Each structure stands twice: as C-alpha cells, then as structure tokens.
C-alpha cells in the first residue's frame, strides 16, 4: 500500500476524482436512493393514499411478524456462529498447506459456485421421503427396508436446524475464502516471534493470529450478517411460502402470493423497511461490539 504524501495531495487537487465518482453517485441516487425513498413512502401510505401508520400497526399486530422475526433471528444467529467457526477452522487448516491442499481448496469452493436455485434443487430432491438422503441412509445401513425419515415434515424446531445445516453447507466456502485471503497476508514474523517466546500453537493462534486477522474477520462476518438476515429463497424452495415465515419471505409473500389484497403492496414495503432497519441495527451493533469503529477511525482501508 503506498501512502499519499502532501505533494501528491496538492497535485491531485483537481476535478478528476469528482468526475470519476460522479457516475457512481448519480447511479446510486437514481437506482438506489430513489426506490428506497419510494419504499419508505409507500410503507406510510394508506390504501386511499393518505399518510398513515396503519401499515406498521397491521404488520406488528395482526400478521405473523413475531414468528418471522424469531425464525430469522434464530436461523441467522446460530448459522453465523457455526459458519464462522467452521470457516475459520478450515481456513487455518488449508493455510497450513498439506499434500493435496490445492485440490481440497478447489473442492471446498464448489458449493459457492452452485446457485441458490441449484442448492434448492439439491436439497429438495434429497430431503423428500423418497429422496436421495433416505436412499443413502438405507444403503449405508442406517435405515431398514421401507423405513424413511420425513425431514421436511418434522417439528418447526428441527426444520429450523435443517435450514441452518443447509445454509452452512453452502456459505462456509465463501466465508473461508475471505478468511484465507486474510491469513495469507499476515506476516509470518509475528507468529514466529510468538513461538520463539515460548507460545504453543493455541496461544499463538489466540494471541497473535486471531487479533491480526480481526479486520478480515469483521469483513467476513458483516457481509454474512447482512445476507443471513435476508435468507428466504432456500426456505421457500423447500417448504413453500407461509410454512416458516421469515422477514424477506414476508416481503415476497405479500408482493407475489397475496397480491390481490388492497394493501399487499404497502405491507410488503413495510416489511422491507422493517427488515432493513433490523439489518442496520444488527450491523451497527456488531461493528460497535467488535470494535470496528475504533479501527475505522484511522482510515478506511
């Protein structure tokens, strides 16, 4: 990273950077800010077009908001923790370089390249009563002939765990790649010094590697956090709408499935606004707790 000194600063004080960022700013005003404001506006708009809080009252009281909120929180909270530790462990493992680590990395990256719809197809075909999961369990001798496990019609609690496991299968690789890239950039000297001063593998990991990896960890977790709260597609593909209500699932549900209601568009917008508020709060709380704001004060990047 090359530092920018004062003479550069003077020389570069011209209109070029503003010209370069102008397209981005214009683009975001038109294609992001514009729809966002429209969404917020429609969440406060009644069926007759007047200003109202009725949409929020409706969402909070009469619909399945509470269930959607807790389902989302449960899935996102647990899956992030599991995925992070699994991804970190795998990244540390691959970083060590063993025989065939390159091939392993390539295989580990495969789930990342499978689209959400493809992942839906994998588990939809796998978890139905006559799907491949039961067949595999039968061939392995875990199930007697004719015996089947009904994964998709279990209790709500078991379904939530099933979703977490499926999500982990798909998400761990992308998280691992980010952590691995961070690990590769760490200086070897610091770790070696830790060993020289008598630290064992675990203390070096805890006292040196993890703290040095912190910025990368924060990036990986925050990206995951934002998308984990917005989980819906895989759940809908496996269980259909309305079975396991989720925050974003509610948005699509009202927009597409209940579009005949008078206020379905407004309710969908309201759910969208509430979801983004929740995501923002979660992201800010995480950044605050992890101390990212103190690091960010120096300079972004």
């Amino acid at each position, binding site marked *: 990273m090359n530092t920018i000194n004062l003479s550069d600063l003077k020389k570069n004080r011209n209109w*070029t950077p503003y010209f370069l960022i102008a*397209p*981005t700013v214009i683009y975001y005003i038109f294609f992001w800010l514009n729809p966002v404001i429209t969404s917020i506006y429609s969440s406060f708009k009644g069926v007759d077009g007047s200003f109202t809080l009725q949409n929020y009252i409706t969402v909070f009281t009469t619909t399945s908001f509470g269930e959607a909120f807790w389902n989302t929180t449960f899935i996102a909270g647990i899956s992030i923790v599991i995925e992070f530790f699994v991804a970190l462990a795998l990244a540390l493992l691959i970083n060590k370089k063993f025989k065939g680590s390159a091939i392993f990395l390539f295989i580990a990256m495969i789930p990342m390249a499978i689209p959400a719809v493809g992942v839906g197809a994998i588990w939809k075909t796998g978890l139905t009563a006559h799907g491949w999961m039961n067949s595999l369990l039968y061939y392995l001798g875990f199930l007697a002939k004719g015996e089947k496990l009904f994964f998709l019609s279990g209790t709500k609690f078991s379904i939530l765990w099933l979703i977490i496991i499926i999500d982990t299968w798909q998400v761990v690789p992308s998280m691992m790649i980010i952590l691995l890239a961070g690990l590769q950039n760490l200086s070897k000297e610091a770790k070696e010094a830790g060993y020289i001063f008598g630290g064992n593998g675990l203390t070096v990991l805890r006292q040196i590697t993890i703290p040095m990896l912190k910025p990368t960890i924060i990036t990986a977790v925050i990206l995951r956090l934002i998308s984990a709260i917005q989980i819906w597609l895989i759940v809908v593909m496996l269980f259909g709408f309305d079975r396991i209500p989720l925050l974003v699932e509610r948005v699509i549900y009202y927009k597409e499935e209940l579009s005949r209601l008078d206020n379905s568009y407004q309710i969908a917008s309201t759910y969208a606004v509430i979801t983004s508020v929740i995501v923002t709060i979660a992201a800010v709380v995480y950044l605050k707790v992890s101390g990212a704001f103190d690091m960010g004060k120096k300079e972004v990047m």
Partner: protein
Amino acid sequence: MIKMWENTISKFAKKTLFSIFITSLIIIIVTPLYFLISLSFLSSREAYQFPLPLVPAISSEFKLEKGEKGYMLSIYEKGDREYQNMIDTKDMEKMSRYMRLQLSVDVSIEKLENYISKLDQQNEVYFKSYKGLLHNYKTFFAITRDAVPALIRSLQVAGLTILISLSIGGMAGYAFARYIFIGKNALKVSVLFVRVFPAVAIAMPMVIILASIGFYDKPVGLSLVYSVGTIALTIWVTASIFLGIPVELEEAAQIFGATKLRTFLTITVPLALPGLAACSMYAFIGAWNETASAIILTQFNPTFAVVVYQSVLGAVDQVNLAAAGGILMALPMVLFTLFIRKYINQMWGGVTA
C-alpha cells in the same frame, strides 16, 4: 528407542486422523452434488424407486410377451434379479411413448412391431436398449415454457451487469485509489451500506421506475437493478487493486507522452486484469443467480433462474426434472468460474496455488 517409536506412532496417528477428517469433509461437500448429477440422469421410473439407484443405469433389458390386453413389456430389475411388468397394450405407439417418457428409452414403433412379429415363432422376445442419458435435459427444455430464450436473456443480463458495474465501479475505484477528495471515507462506507436494504425492496418500486424509462421486463432493466449491489463490491475490490499498481508506472508512461486516458488503458487496465476478472466473476454470479428481484421485475420475459425456480417449486413429483434444471443452472457458473480461474489465482497469489 521406545520414545522414538512413540513419536512415530503419534505422528502416524495424527496424520491418519487428519486424512480421515479431510476425506469426510470432501464427502460432505461432494455427496449432495453427486446425487444431484446422478438424479438428473435417472429415468422417471428410476426416480420413483426407493431406494434411488446409486448409479444411473446406462441401458435396460426388456422382455416382450403376449399379454392379456395385447403385448406385455417387462423390464429387468437388477436389484430383484427378475423381470417386472411395465405395460400391457396393443397400441405400439402408446408403448413407444411410455418407454420414452417413463424409461427414457427411445425405441421406434417399427422396431417394436418387428419384435412383436417374432412372437409368432417364440413365446418371449428379449432386447436391450440404451437409455437416453440427456432425456431429462431435453424434457426440461421441452416442457418448460421458453427456457431457451430465458437462458439467452440471463446471459444478456449477466453481460450487461458486468459492463455496468465494471465501468461505473471501476472509475470510482480508481478515484478511491489515486486521489484524496472531500467525502471519500463517507462515500466508501455508504457504498457498502446499499446492501443493507433488501434487494427485493429495491425491486418493487423499480417496477414503476423502469417502466417509466421503458426498461421494465427487459434484460437492461434487470442489470440496472443487479448492478446496485455489484458496483459497491467492484469499487472496493478495484480500489485495492489500483492501490497495488505503482503510480510510478503511470507517471513514466505520461513522461513518454501518453495521455492520461491512454496511460490508463494501456498500463493500468492490463495490470489490473486479474482483479477486474474477479469483479466480473462476482457480477456474473450475482446476476446469474438472482431470483427474488427477477421474479418481481419480469412478467413475460423471465430469466433462467426464474424458470428453474418455478420448475423446482412445481416439480414435487418429478425430482429428476428438477435435478436437471438445477444442473443447467449451475453449469454456466461452473464453466465461467473455470474460465476465469487463472486470473483469480493471480490475484490471490498463493491462495489457490
């Protein structure tokens, strides 16, 4: 001496444990994929069986004999080691169609009639036929409304998204790397913030906005929406790449009389190619996979993701077709990733070495 032995044994045990661990991880990753691929090659009859065959059959053995209604067709069941009755009919067209749809086997009516004629001399006729392995894929395209145009549209959307996000995001990334300007940090944080608002929530009002500029239900419109997320990522990635390219190189080119634009195009862009490739991969993945916004933003011209989504959702009883759809969805991504892998390797240096 004993100590040395202990050391060797513990080392060996560690190594073994490690290999077992890695192997089981690979099994966990690969098994679901294997079954998706295997399922996509199964005939409808095989897909209904339980347990599902571990390996799709390549050929089937048949037996024809006189039946109650006409002629009885039986198929050899490898598991039970016996022939199982399939269909009893006089109508050879019906039998041929049944074999094509249920067993993925193409046997023409003439051929069947030829076999039947032999039944005059003998009681049973045996024959073997190869299974059309790509049958599910053909059926997927045949029964799914405009799958091919949807595929082309999806590629258009992905291409346009790459173009938009690389040009707009790349410019901003260059500004972030080379210049100091008012609001730099604020802007950089805020481009990440755009992802906080659910993409679907952007898509809903975009229906009206795109309709007003005539882009609703068109690939351009979709790529404009998808680029919202990818531009932010492109800015971050390209900024760090341009930071890694020494300013001195650009200055040297300018000393030799090149204009700023020419320097950028002939010196900076080629050096940044690996990173730009990575960005275009992310843009491609994002655009190709996106389903939620596409459901909302298309009406008569769905993307391929939407088509597959609908067929998987609707294919409760046809898991083999759903699997073929899933594979078709994943294939371009895997190809694209392979194609662009060497550039990514360059960017990550040792990571994928």
